[in-house]
């Protein structure tokens, strides 16, 4: 029996994840220092874990409302108002989801008709393009460039608008590049969105992790944007709660209602334990976020200096916990560099191409790892670069 032909075409046609392939090579090796882990190395702050434990002790194990616990939704609305300056009604505008990943999937499925074009900036998180395809949309990648520090520009965006353009997906601070947006550019992008009546999905997951005093600005807070934006955020990075699988979407009530329709049948509700933990995080977690953010800043300084010192051009990003150095000086492709570095020096970085064709010539290094590990890894990468250049010269 040929099972393959039973797989839905749009699923079958999604290419294998570049990260997964790389992961499989890493698995075969011992003692690899991985700079390829896109999650915090910190444990979830104890008081948040304790809140989850207490929740279970109290026997809170039933379903919650589809939209999520009312208290949590209110706390989310308060948090977003305080930190982003956008007002949402906790009762009608907020949907608690299983991570931002689910929010993205819901948003796309709620908005996209077959053939609708969804624009996104590249290099970007690995799930965007496949999620668009799974929602029967047409992914349209807008390249970003090192010369702009990988900011999405309104000019490049506008070039790719067609009558079929429906949605723009944005993620700043950006995984994998660490790019952040300026107010100026966001205003221009907002103007493009208004002009062409696009709905914007903004993935804000790294927004607490900003450095050098840079303050984060969400496109949803700009004039004319709240009514056409789905604001998505979560707890995985700022509060180190990746495994809790908890996030949220805030949007005008009509859009939230549409997403909720899908969520209620597909998921019913996010885990109540995770929701209780998330509430604790919002109410008491601010000092922990600041401590972690400060740590990341030190490591960022270290890793950026190290890359530049060894001759690999690396801009100092203002957000996220990734750097995206240019490795083309070694004469190797992103994939070659990553595989050879891994095999020769047991250090894992992720090839830039795993995040889109615009990533060629770069690798993503994550600094959500201890300074001790970082130092060893950077020393080994330095050796690798020197040896490779030496080989080139010879």
């Amino acid at each position, binding site marked *: 029996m040929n099972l393959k032909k039973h797989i839905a075409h749009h699923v079958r046609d999604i290419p294998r*994840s570049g*990260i997964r392939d*790389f*992961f499989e090579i*890493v*698995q075969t090796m011992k003692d*690899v220092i*991985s700079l*390829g*882990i*896109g*999650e915090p*190395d910190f444990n979830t702050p104890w008081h948040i874990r304790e809140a989850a434990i207490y929740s279970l002790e109290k026997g809170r194990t039933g379903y919650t409302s589809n939209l999520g616990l009312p208290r949590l939704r209110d706390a989310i609305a308060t948090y977003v108002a305080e930190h982003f300056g956008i007002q949402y009604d906790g009762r009608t505008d907020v949907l608690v989801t299983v991570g931002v990943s689910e929010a993205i999937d819901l948003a796309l499925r709620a908005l996209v008709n077959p053939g609708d074009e969804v624009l996104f900036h590249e290099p970007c*998180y*690995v*799930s965007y393009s496949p999620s668009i395809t799974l929602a029967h949309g047409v992914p349209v990648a807008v390249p970003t460039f090192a010369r702009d520090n990988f900011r999405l520009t309104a000019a490049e965006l506008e070039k790719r608008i067609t009558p079929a353009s429906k949605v723009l997906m944005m993620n700043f601070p950006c*995984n994998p590049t660490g790019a952040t947006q300026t107010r100026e550019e966001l205003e221009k992008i907002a103007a493009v969105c208004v002009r062409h009546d696009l709905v914007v999905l903004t993935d804000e997951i790294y927004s607490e992790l900003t450095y050098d005093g840079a303050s984060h600005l969400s496109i949803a807070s700009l004039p004319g944007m709240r009514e056409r934006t789905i604001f998505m955020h979560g707890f995985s990075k700022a509060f180190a709660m990746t495994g809790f699988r908890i996030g949220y979407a805030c949007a005008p009530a009509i859009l939230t209602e549409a997403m909720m329709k899908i969520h209620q049948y597909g998921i019913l509700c996010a885990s109540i334990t995770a929701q209780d933990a998330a509430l604790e995080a919002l109410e008491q977690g601010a000092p922990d976020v600041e401590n972690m953010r*400060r740590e990341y800043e*030190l*490591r960022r*300084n*270290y890793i950026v*200096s*190290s890359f530049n010192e060894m001759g690999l051009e690396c801009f100092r990003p203002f957000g996220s916990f990734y750097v995206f150095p240019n490795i083309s000086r070694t004469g190797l492709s992103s994939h070659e560099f990553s595989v050879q570095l891994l095999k020769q020096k047991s250090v*894992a970085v*992720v090839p830039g191409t*795993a995040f889109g064709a615009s990533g060629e010539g770069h690798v993503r290094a994550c600094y959500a790892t201890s*300074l001790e590990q970082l*130092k060893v890894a950077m020393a080994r990468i330095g050796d690798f670069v020197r040896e490779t250049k030496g080989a080139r010269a010879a």
Partner: protein
Amino acid sequence: MDPLLTLLKRDAHTAPEDLARELNLSAPEINARIARYEEEGVILGYQAILNTDKTGDDLVTAVIEVKITPERGGGFDRLAARISQFDEVTNCYLMSGGYDLLVIAEGRTLQAIASFIAEKLSTIQGVISTATHFRLKVYKENGVLLQREKGEARLAVAP
């Protein structure tokens, strides 16, 4: 507190070049700052934090609650300074609560510490009483856990 001090507190061994990278300063600036802190007595010293279970020395540590009579014109300071002079005393603090000074003392044996307390500490004019507790096990020393969890719990590669 200056982030430099936080980093040195965590690991005083860190090379100035690394400190420079982490703090976006130059190595000479780092060295100059450290020299100044040492001069001003902000940095009192550098010590390796040892796991005495593994050093093979078998020292005994006691935590002693000392009640003293404060003096006119000196309060507790003079007595505390005098007690602190003893080599056996590794830490000495003035505390609020049911006693005055918390003294941590080290000796080769239980008897050695007992002798120290009986013959040298309690006999000081102004010391009213002592209550001695012997330390049995160390779980955390100067911010360092003795039992560290091993290994990386995260997936090796994640988007």
